[in-house]
């Protein structure tokens, strides 16, 4: 992984903004889908695909690649948008999201789109799959393997018992090359996570299962990168990064509101911005960096 210098950080931040715009555009076109999670995870996905992951968009089946397993499949707009910007497929194709015949299924299907490592949507099963991949890798390459298995999880899906079955197994097997990243945005469909089913103290939970755990600001490129480097350096333990994120990050009227979990612009709560204006206002806000610049051309 190349050094993360200031210029690179700036480039990544601009890239994340592009990814957010694509997310909004694809959701507007689709007329359904999830907004909060994808916007909140845009920085992490950008850092992964443009800095941390060992991968080759032109050779998605490259055997020596790192693997990214998306467990909470419903945030796939951010996965698709980042993959498109990384060169896996044309950005224009993002507008086919959720449409009949599209490779961009409403929840990801491995067989439909090269570069997807699995099919997900039903929550709670991604971590087990990542553990299985890492175990298979260990059989072939032993504990020296330098391939990494990233599993991206939602905090809501930590309600699922299967997550903790996988957590136990990974701790027992001391899988060094497994890096989990939890989108700790504190919301799920019905409300705030701590009201629905409290997760705290989350760090203690993972540590008690034998994991190395870090808590970071999930919008700070340097923090994300450092946490991944730390996770890679830890031997004899799986690593979990609890990334505190703002759901709906980047667009004022979608931030921090669980009502935006499962709605696209145009169908979210209309109390701040009317439904018919939500798409335009969101895109404008992203393009002008919240009014800091007048338009993307200046």
């Amino acid at each position, binding site marked *: 992984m190349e050094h993360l210098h200031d210029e690179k950080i700036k480039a990544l931040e601009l890239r994340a903004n592009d990814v957010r715009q694509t997310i909004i555009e694809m959701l507007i076109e689709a007329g359904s889908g999830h907004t909060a999670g994808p916007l909140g995870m845009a920085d992490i996905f950008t850092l992964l695909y443009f800095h941390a992951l060992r991968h080759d968009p032109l050779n998605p089946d490259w055997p020596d690649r790192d693997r990214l397993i998306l467990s909470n499949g419903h945030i796939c707009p951010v996965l698709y948008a980042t993959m498109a910007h990384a060169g896996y497929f044309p950005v224009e194709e993002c507008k086919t999201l959720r449409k009949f015949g599209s490779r961009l299924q409403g929840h990801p299907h491995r067989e439909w789109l090269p570069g997807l490592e699995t099919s997900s949507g039903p929550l709670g099963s991604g971590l087990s799959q990542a*553990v*299985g991949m890492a175990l*298979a890798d260990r059989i072939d390459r032993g504990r020296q393997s330098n391939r990494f298995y990233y599993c991206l999880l939602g905090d809501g899906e930590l309600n699922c018992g299967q997550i903790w079955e996988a957590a136990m197994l990974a701790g027992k097997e001391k899988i060094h090359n497994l890096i989990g990243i939890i989108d700790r945005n504190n919301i799920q469909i019905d409300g705030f996570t701590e009201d629905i089913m409290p997760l705290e103290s989350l760090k203690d939970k993972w540590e008690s299962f034998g994991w190395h755990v870090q808590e970071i600001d999930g919008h700070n490129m340097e923090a994300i990168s450092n946490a991944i480097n730390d996770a890679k350096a830890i031997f004899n333990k799986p690593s979990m990064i609890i990334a505190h994120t703002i759901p709906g990050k980047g667009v004022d009227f979608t931030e921090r509101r669980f009502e935006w979990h499962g709605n696209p612009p145009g169908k979210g709560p209309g109390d701040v911005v009317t439904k018919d204006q939500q798409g335009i206002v969101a895109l404008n806000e992203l393009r002008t960096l919240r009014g800091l610049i007048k338009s993307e051309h200046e």
Partner: protein
Amino acid sequence: MNNMKLPPLNPKLFDADVEQAPIRKGFGEGLLQAGEENHQVVALCADLTESTQMHLFRNKFPERFVQMGIGEQSMASVASGMAALGKVPFFSSYAMFSPGRNWEQIRTTIAYNNVNAKIIGSHAGISVGPDGGTHQPLEDMGLMRMIPRMVVISPCDSIEARKATLAAAKYEGPVYIRLAREATPIVTTDETPFEIGVAQTFFEPKEGLGVTVGIVATGSLMHNALLAAKKLEGQGVGVRVLNIATIKPLDVDAIIALAKETGAIVSVEEHQIHGGMGSAIAEALSTSFPTKQVFVGVKDEFGQSGTPSELVEHYGMGVNSIVEACLQIHTQA
């Protein structure tokens, strides 16, 4: 068309001292052999390693064995992940828990995801016995048959289970194999052919007796079906017995041929009559050659504690029940 050529079968089939072995035992032997033949074969188990006979593999290949603890949901998905990296995972538990408890994980992360994982459900059927209704899966074939891409195999004895395991290891794609717990009479021999999706005739009535009823049986009840056919032969009723080891894909041609010749089908399975092999046969026949059918199996109820033979008799799957079913449909015809 009488005296169809039968495959080699156990010559002591109808003797009182016919050899017996648990069907699951053949799985354990087959998995060990599959592991020897292909280094990519791996095994996962949810705290039932000896019960499901995986210990043979574990003892020989400990580095290729994953002890999951009692975590069937995770086990299905861990197997999916291992398959994604090119392994050929077999994962086992009691059928009640896998595929009983982890159906959605099997559907999404294995079948929908189209990976090469093998589900081994042991202790299937009512013949689990004294453990009672909680531990008697009678719905597993239906659960698995409903899932696109899933191959469903129900071997009739330990020898067929060994061959089915080897065939599953070579087959590319998801496979479910259901195994019974109890010692079961050995019906086949090492020489009996086995191929996924191919049914075989295991009994023909003696020369001169027309074939008027077709029994289609699967799994642990195969021996009862053969005894019933033999008994009916003595009563002058000609019955052909078809062994359906593969519930899906079903050998539709063999079933239609049997229906055309007999006009009367009796399906025999240690499973709910809804959703299992009998249903699969009815689905196939109703679209191409509608045929009267009597369903021998458990009729929409749960089991209870008892000895395996008590339960098989009580729930209408004993030899006499199969004879009665054949006579019923024979009389109707």
